């Protein structure tokens, strides 16, 4: 069975669509005959250009939602359109709002939702791929007796590809009213960070519990700076409050695919590995010779980050090219 109509929940970001949304529109075009992107926010016209360039056949725009957390309203709006539009599959970015939309939509449509998807393939309908055990194995799954199929897809699972130069036709629709009392944003707090964005950096240097204390994270930041990269972190030290969540690499954080990933004092929990094992080159420094991170490392160094990092920083600082 081929897939005729694919919906992509296209999450707004900045003045356009989020990176994962763009990847999903491209993938929707690859697996489906036509792609409808569904979005909201204040930049619908720009989003129509972005979606059209990626091959979306149409953009549905629910407009500005103000300060309301989008899940209830967007899920209700999507559910109301499903009977007339009959999508075969709905692709949703694995972001906080994306997951919330997927959960509510799943209940409204009474269909299961497949999450942590990193691949889609055609079989009897669409089959989804899910990494398990740190990505050493892939589970292939599908839903049965349920249409549309809901897939929550992880960032960087697919490549966004510009295939056209015309905007997608934009349908401005009024968002549905939700019966659920809304959750609203009272204030947004932005934590400043400098240097390249973690998801886009060519080099990522991450630290974990093996750093021993929060002060040692400065070594990770300095090494990242010298390599023109971004500092990252394991969940353990984000949970411990050493660094903000925006630094987190892994299942619950960012998926990164840099040219070089340096893991400092990170043992390599499943949680972390799924977020970084797509890096082109991996260097790991860890005291424990049996740390799982070494199984995915191109260069593994069994040693103490507290002696190696300062010496590496000194060596790089002494070179003219870094």
């Amino acid at each position: 069975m081929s897939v005729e109509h694919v919906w992509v929940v296209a999450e707004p970001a900045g003045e356009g669509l989020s990176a994962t949304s763009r990847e999903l529109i491209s993938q929707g075009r690859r697996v489906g005959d036509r792609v409808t992107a569904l979005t909201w926010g204040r930049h619908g016209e720009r989003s129509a250009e972005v979606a059209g360039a990626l091959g979306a056949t149409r953009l549905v725009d629910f407009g500005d939602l103000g300060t309301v957390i989008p899940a209830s309203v967007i899920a209700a709006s999507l559910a109301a359109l499903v009977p007339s539009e009959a999508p075969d599959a709905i692709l949703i970015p694995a972001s906080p709002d994306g997951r919330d939309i997927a959960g509510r939509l799943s209940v409204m449509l009474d269909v299961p939702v497949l999450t942590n998807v990193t691949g889609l393939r055609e079989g009897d309908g669409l089959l989804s791929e899910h990494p398990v055990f740190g990505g050493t194995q892939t589970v292939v799954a599908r839903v049965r007796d349920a249409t549309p199929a809901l897939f929550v897809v992880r960032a960087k699972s697919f490549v966004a590809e510009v295939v056209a130069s015309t905007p997608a036709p934009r349908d401005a629709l009024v968002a549905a009213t939700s019966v659920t009392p809304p959750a609203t944003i009272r204030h947004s707090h932005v934590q400043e960070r400098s240097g390249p964005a973690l998801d886009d950096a060519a080099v990522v240097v991450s630290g974990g519990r093996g750093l021993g204390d929060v002060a040692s994270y400065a070594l990770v930041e300095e090494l990242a700076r010298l390599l023109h990269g971004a500092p990252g972190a394991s969940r353990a030290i984000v949970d411990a409050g050493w660094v903000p969540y925006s630094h987190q690499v892994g299942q619950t954080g960012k998926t990164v695919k840099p040219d070089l990933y340096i893991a400092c004092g990170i043992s390599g929990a499943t949680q972390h590995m799924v977020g970084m094992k797509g890096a082109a080159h991996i260097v790991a420094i860890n005291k424990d010779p049996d740390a799982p991170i070494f199984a995915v490392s191109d260069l593994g160094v069994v040693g103490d980050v507290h002696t190696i990092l300062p010496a590496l920083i000194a060596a790089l600082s002494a070179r003219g090219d870094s």
Partner: protein
Amino acid sequence: MNVVVCVKQIPDPAAPQSLDGENRLSRTGKMILDEADTYGVEVALRLVEAAGDGEVSLVSMGDAADLTGIRSALAMGAVRATVVSDPLLRGADALTTAKVLAAAVKEGGFDLIVAATESSDGYTGTLPVQVAQLLDLPALTFATSVAIEGDHVVVHRQTDAGYDEVVAPVPAVVTVTAGVVEPRYATFKGIMAAKSRPINVVTTADLGFAPEDVRVRQEIVGVETSASRVAGEKIVDDGNAVARIVAYLEDIKILSGGAS
């Protein structure tokens, strides 16, 4: 202030993990309370303590043969638990699980439902919001702090850029991230008290579901070994590590120089 916490017993993540004959996570070994849930229990206990009245109760779904994990949450201070345990739920997807948990929660009164952002074994991350939708409640997800202000709940919700302060009327569902608070250790008194706290084990039929309502609709069609990375060179630092790392960075052209 009555808070219900959704908790889950999972295979010990420190033990080797495998898939069973039906390609599901093997749950034959020792089961423990998901560490992610200890944060939810702690948040709930603190909210009740701050309110000065009310209690924390637990709901869970899973095999009731070993309830050690549930007992450890009771030992922290929750007063009772409902565990939905039913062979029909083997392989249940998150939506079905949400349906039975929502039904179990509805049996008692509550002001707030607290859950982990996601479990540490399945990482699905949609169940709490599905419960919220089934009960027509607002959901405040990815919370790093939770407070009650009158008849509203206020959380800090993690965002890429920092955090949003999000508010909704109670009753509501809140999901908390790990690390939001330091979970308390059970005291000896708590452990002893937990032995006598009630754990109500119910089936889907007890909650009013027909077998058709909870049928498995998500199927695993195969498991494949991923094209895995091959471990490369591993060295033990004897003072040469920095030189080796620099040479490697030159090889992969992150640094200029190299074989010159």
